C-alpha cells in the first residue's frame, strides 16, 4: 500500500514537470522543470532497489546536465522572453504521434504476460554493480571512459571560440 502511494506520488512528480518541460513557453522554466523530473526518476529507482543508479542519476542528471543546459541557455540568446514562439508547425501531428505511440505501447505492455522472477536481489547493490563493471562488463567500462574522454575533448574543441 505504501509502496503504491509512493509510486503514484513519484510518478506524478516525474510526469507533470515533464509535461511542463515540453510545453512551456519559457525555456528557462523548461530547463528548471527538468529537476523535479529527474528527482522523481531517482525516487523510482530507489523504489526499484537500484540505489547506486539513483545516486548517479542525481549527481549526473539533476546536477551536471541540468546546469549544463542552463549554461547553454544563458550563453545563447534563445532563452529570453516568452514572446518567441517555442513550438513549430508539427504540433498536431507530433502530439498525435506521441499519443498514439503511447497508447499502442501501453496496449502491448498490458497485453503481454510478463513473467515474474524467481531469484532474489543481492544484498549490497553498489558492490555487485562495481564487481560487475570490473569483471563481466569491464570492456564496456573502459570504452565508456574512452567515450567520455573523446566527448570531453570534442565538446571543448567544438565550443571553442575561433581566435
Amino acid at each position, binding site marked *: 500500500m505504501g509502496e503504491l502511494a509512493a509510486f503514484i506520488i513519484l510518478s506524478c512528480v516525474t510526469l507533470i514537470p515533464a509535461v511542463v518541460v515540453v510545453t512551456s513557453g519559457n525555456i528557462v522554466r523548461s530547463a528548471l522543470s527538468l529537476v523535479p523530473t529527474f528527482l522523481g526518476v531517482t525516487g523510482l529507482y530507489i523504489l526499484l532497489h537500484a540505489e547506486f543508479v539513483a545516486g548517479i542519476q542525481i549527481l549526473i542528471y539533476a546536477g551536471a546536465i541540468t546546469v549544463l543546459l542552463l549554461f547553454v541557455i544563458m550563453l545563447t540568446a534563445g532563452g529570453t522572453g516568452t514572446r518567441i514562439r517555442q513550438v513549430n508547425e508539427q504540433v498536431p501531428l*507530433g502530439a498525435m504521434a506521441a499519443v498514439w505511440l503511447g497508447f499502442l505501447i501501453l496496449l502491448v505492455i498490458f497485453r503481454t504476460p510478463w513473467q515474474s522472477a524467481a531469484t532474489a536481489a543481492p544484498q549490497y547493490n553498489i558492490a555487485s554493480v562495481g564487481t560487475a563493471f570490473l569483471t563481466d562488463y569491464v570492456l564496456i567500462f573502459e570504452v565508456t571512459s574512452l567515450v567520455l574522454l573523446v566527448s570531453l575533448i570534442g565538446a571543448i574543441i567544438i565550443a571553442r571560440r575561433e581566435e
Partner: protein
Amino acid sequence: MLPYAWIIPVLPFIGFWWIIFAGRRAPGQGAYVAIGAMIGAAVLSVAAFIEVLRGARYDTSLVWATVLNRPLEVGFQVDPLTSVMLLIVTVVGSLIFVYSIGYMQGDPRYPRFFAYMSLFASSMLLLVLSNNFLSLYAGWELVGLCSYLLIGFWFERPAAARASMKAFVTTRVGDFFMFLGILLIFVQLGTLNFDGIFAGVETGRFAGGLLTLAAVLVFGGAVGKSAQVPLHVWLPDAMEGPTPVSALIHAATMVAAGVYLVARTYPLFFGTPGHEALTVVAYIGGITAIMAATIGVVQDDIKRVMAYSTISQLGYMMMGLGVLGFTAGVFHLMTHAFFKALLFLAAGSVIHAMHTNDIKQMGGLGKIMPYTYVTTVIGGLALAGIPPFAGFWSKDEILLEAYHHDQVLFALGAAGAFLTAFYVFRMIIYTFTGTLRSHNAHPHESPRVMTVPLMILAFFSTVIGLVGAPWWDNPFHHFVRFEGAEGAAFDLAFALRSTGIAALGVLSALVVYHWRLVSAASLRSAFGPLYTAVVHKYYWDELYQFAVIRPVVWAARQLRTFDVYVIDGVVNAIGAGFVGLARLYRVFDLYVVDGLVNVVAWTAKTTGGVLRYVQTGRPQNYLLVIALGVIALVVVGVIR
C-alpha cells in the same frame, strides 16, 4: 538476186541509224553515208530491174502473227510495177541526196537531214516492196512521219511547224479511211496478202457494193497522200520544208505512193461492178488536175507554182488509172518523178542564189545561171508535154485514154494541159528572162554538186519518155500492164492535137509575159470573180478552218474545261480530302498522342514537384515520419 531484194530498203535504214548515232562523226557528216546507202540500193534496184525485165518474178511471205485464228503474213514481192518504183525512188533519191550536199551546206542540223532522208527512202522502198496491206500500211505511215519531220525541219519557223502538222493531220484523215478499208477487206477475206485479196475478188467472194466501199475507202488514203481534192491543202504549205525535201517527197516519190497504191490494188478497183470505183478515182483526179492548174497560174512563189503543178499532175495520174489507162497512169508517174524533181531542184538552185522564193523579184537569171536555166527549160517543156520530152508521151497517153472513156474527163484534161504549159512558162519567163527586178540580190550559179544532178535529171527528162514511144512497140506497155486495162493504140492525129494544146499554152505565156502583147492585168480583170476565187485557192483552207478546225478546237476547249474542272477537280478534291485527313491526323497527333506524352511528363514533374517537399532538410520532420512509421508497424504487429 530477187530473193535478196529485201536488202534494198535495209541499206538506207542502216544509214539512218548510223547517222543518228554518229552524227557529225559519220563520213561526210552523214551525207556520204546516206548517198552510199542510196547508191547501193540503186545498184541493187537496177539488178532487180534487169532480172524482172528478163521475166523473173518473186513473191515471198512469212507468218508474223495470228489474229482470230487467221495467220497474218508479211512479205515482199518483185514484179514490173515494183521494179519500176524501186528504180525511181533510188535513182532520183541518189541525185537529190547529192544535190543536198550543196543546198544544205552550213545548216546546223545537217546530219539529221540526211538521217531523216535515209529513213524516208527506206520507208518508201518498204512500201513499194510490200506484198501485203500490213507492211504497206507500215511503210505508208513511216513516210508520213518522215514527211512531218522533214517539212518541219526548220521548226524554229512557226510557218514550217504549222505546215508539218497540217500535212500530218490532213494525210491522217486519208489514212483513217484507208485503215477502215483495210479492216473491211480483212474481215471479209481473212487475209491482207495482195494475192489472197485479188484471188478473193476474182472468185467473187468479195464483190458488189461492199467491194466498192472497200476500194473507195482505200482510195481515201491515196487522196490524202497524193494531195487530191479535198485533201490537197497540205501540199502547198509543205513547201516550207527544204527544197530537196520538196523534190524527193512532195514531187517524185511520197505523193506518188497514192498512185502506186491504186495501181498495186488495181484488181480491187477493177472488180467493182461497172468499174465504178475507178470512175470515182478518175473524176477526183480530173477535178484535181484542172483545179490545181488554175491555182498554179496565179502563184508568185516559185515553189508554190511547182506544188500546185504536182497536185495537178497527180490528178492526171489518178485520172489515167481511172479511165482504165493503167499503163498510162504508171508511166506518167515515172516521167513526172524525173521532171518534177528536176524542176524543184532547179527552183532550189534559184532560191539558193536569190534567197527568196518570189518570182516577181527575180528576172534575168538566165544569163547568170545558165545551167539552171537550160535544165529548167527542159523540165518545163517536159511538164508542158512537148515532144520528144518525157511528159508528152505519158500525158498524151492519159488524154487518149480519157478521150476514149469519158469526154468530160478529156475536156478537163485538155484544159488542164493548156494551163500547165501556161503557168510553167510564166514561171520560167518571170524567173530567167528580162532584167533582175530585185536590188539587193547577188545571184550566181550554183556549185557543181547542185548543177550536175540537174543535168542528169534533165537528161532523163528528155529520154525517159521514149520507153513508151510507139515506134519500137512501146516497151513500157508490155512491161507494166494490167489485164483488161489495155490502153488504146497510139494515135498520131491525137498526139498532134495534144501537142498543139501544149504549144498553145507555151505561146500564150510568151504572149502575155514575154512579148507583153496582152497585159496580165487585163486578163485578171477579164476573169474577175474567177481570178479572186483562184487567188484564194477556192477558199478550201477557209472552208476547213470554219467547218473542221473551229468545231474541233471548240470541242477540245470543252473537253479541256471538263478536264480541268471535273477531272482535275476530282483529283484536287481527293487531294484536298487527304490534306484534310492529314490535318485531322495532325490534330489527333498534337492533342492525343503529344498530349499523352505531355501528360506523362506533367505527371512526373508534378509528382516530383510535390515529393520534393518531403525533403525539408529538417530532422524533426523526418523524426515525425519515423514515429508514424513505427506506429504503423506496431499497429500491424498488434493486429496480426
